[in-house]
């Protein structure tokens, strides 16, 4: 405060600052010197690739070859002639919605349990975070082994007398997508749990006491006190997780490779296949770019929520 007053007093004695200087701000020069590395990275490693991402979709570029400009041909082919694109879109939505809903559900249970007065609560919290701490690749490969035809899940189900013939969980149409949703949920629920727990702990205790005095049951306390207080937190984690899940590559690629057929191909794996297996980089990138508006829409909803927290 004192500094402000002092500098203002000095400014009043000398001649007034030129308007341009005032518009650029007091610390303009120092600020941009400190920001040079960040801005450089944002431009070279993000803005440029984003621009070139769009440019590539207008070319017939393949690996090692110079692309030729072909206008919107890639988009036409993808939307009208591609035999799998619409299936990939559908898979992407099923995978994302299924996983996010399940993660929210299990994460909420985790948060509610950890919010109770437990012995060794810190230990349980740490242990429940483990699935999220383990690298995704490790998660995917471990579950590939668990769900294998000779894997432990089939053995356990057999030993419990629940089934006779082992089920190829990842290799048949009926169960492949379901298995992927399960694995993604296992990996991601702790993130929901821990964030929702922080939200729960921020709810003032008085609200619960008041509800108690009004004679609210356990369910009513959850419904009318907990849920409304958690609204923003739920919204932010759900949207964040939607972005990550929608763009997941490793879980799908390492568990099913998009198969059987294209039954579990999501857009990251399909982009990869088109770009690096059939080597059509321009056409593959078109899959990503065509779905980018959905993503940008989601980010537009999310960023004001996250920036609002920042401004406070």
């Amino acid at each position: 405060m004192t500094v402000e007053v002092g500098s203002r007093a000095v400014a009043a004695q000398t001649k007034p600052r030129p308007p341009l200087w005032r518009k650029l701000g007091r610390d303009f020069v120092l600020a941009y010197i400190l920001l040079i590395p960040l801005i450089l990275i944002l431009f070279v490693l993000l803005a440029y690739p984003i621009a070139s991402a769009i440019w590539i979709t207008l070319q017939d570029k393949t690996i090692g070859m110079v692309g030729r400009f072909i206008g919107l041909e890639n988009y036409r082919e993808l939307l009208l002639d591609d035999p799998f694109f619409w299936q990939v879109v559908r898979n992407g939505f099923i995978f994302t919605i299924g996983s996010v809903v399940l993660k929210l559900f299990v994460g909420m249970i985790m948060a509610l349990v950890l919010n109770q007065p437990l012995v060794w609560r810190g230990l349980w919290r740490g242990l429940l975070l483990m699935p999220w701490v383990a690298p995704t690749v490790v998660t995917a490969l471990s579950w590939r082994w668990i769900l294998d035809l000779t894997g432990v899940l089939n053995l356990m189900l057999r030993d419990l007398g629940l089934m006779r013939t082992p089920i190829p969980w990842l290799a048949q149409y009926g169960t492949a997508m379901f298995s992927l949703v399960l694995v993604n949920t296992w990996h991601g629920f702790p993130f929901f749990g821990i964030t929702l727990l922080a939200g729960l702990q921020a709810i003032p205790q008085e609200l619960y006491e008041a509800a108690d005095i009004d004679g609210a049951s356990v369910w009513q306390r959850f419904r009318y006190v907990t849920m409304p207080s958690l609204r923003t937190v739920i919204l932010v984690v759900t949207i964040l997780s939607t972005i990550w899940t929608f763009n997941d590559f490793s879980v799908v690629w390492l568990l099913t490779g998009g198969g059987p057929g294209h039954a579990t191909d999501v857009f990251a794996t399909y982009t990869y296949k088109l770009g690096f297996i059939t080597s059509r980089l321009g056409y593959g990138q078109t899959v990503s770019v065509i779905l980018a508006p959905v993503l940008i829409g989601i980010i537009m909803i999310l960023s004001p929520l996250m920036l609002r927290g920042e401004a406070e």
Partner: protein
Amino acid sequence: MRTTQRQKILLAIITYLTLAGLLFGALFPFYWIGLTSLRKGKQVYTKQQVLVPRDLTTENYRFVFEERPTVMWLRNSLVVSFISSAVSVVIGVLAGYSIVRLKFWGNRTIAKGVLFTYLIPTSLLFIPMFILMFSLHLTGGLWGLLFAYLSFNVPFCTWLILGYFRSIPEELEDAARIDGCTRLGVLWRIVLPLAAPGIVTAFIFGFTNSWNEFLYAVTLVSRRELMTLPTGLGSYILGDVFLWGPLMATAIITALPPIILFIVVQRFIVTGMTLGSVKG
């Protein structure tokens, strides 16, 4: 109807049962991969008493260390993760301080830009990133991977550090400036020590982000000896033969560093997770 004694006991029972269920679900896979990594060859496929640890051996670990380039992969992972995260933290500290404390035109725009780029997923950019690195002749070594990791770690670390800087009271800095400290002096002497937990958290998150990264690693590195652990692991499965024992041993080696880091600094991390994603 107040919560009675009976209801409380019932609630406690339900809570502990649910906790047990969650713990089993979360930890069983770890038990299982650990067990597989300690079993040898045919025994991996035993049909009898699969869950009981018996006749364990460290043969798989010897195999992956001596007959597979695991040490190289470990080294590559460490180098790329450490450097990309350290560089990102330095850039993040400079940029974060500037955005939070300095007054200049474009302040809000840059904060928004950081958030926006943090949210852009790698699956959208891996093809242009590959073309960029390929044309710069960086796909032959680890440099391409290092630069690619900066593209997500820099916005991420900046965003996290920004949040921590905001939580430091501005009055402390004003006091130091009255005592004759320069802007950078304040950053070095007042802000950095106070934000140390946040900076450590950002570093660890950046490190694990790079450590776990798979898509760029698959597309930007093709030579076997330049792979990082995740792609090395992946290379076991994309062949026709599944050597589950060695594969699970490598999985354990890959998972250990993040888990150890996490245990050491759990307290920082849990606050960091909630700060970075949900502010307010």
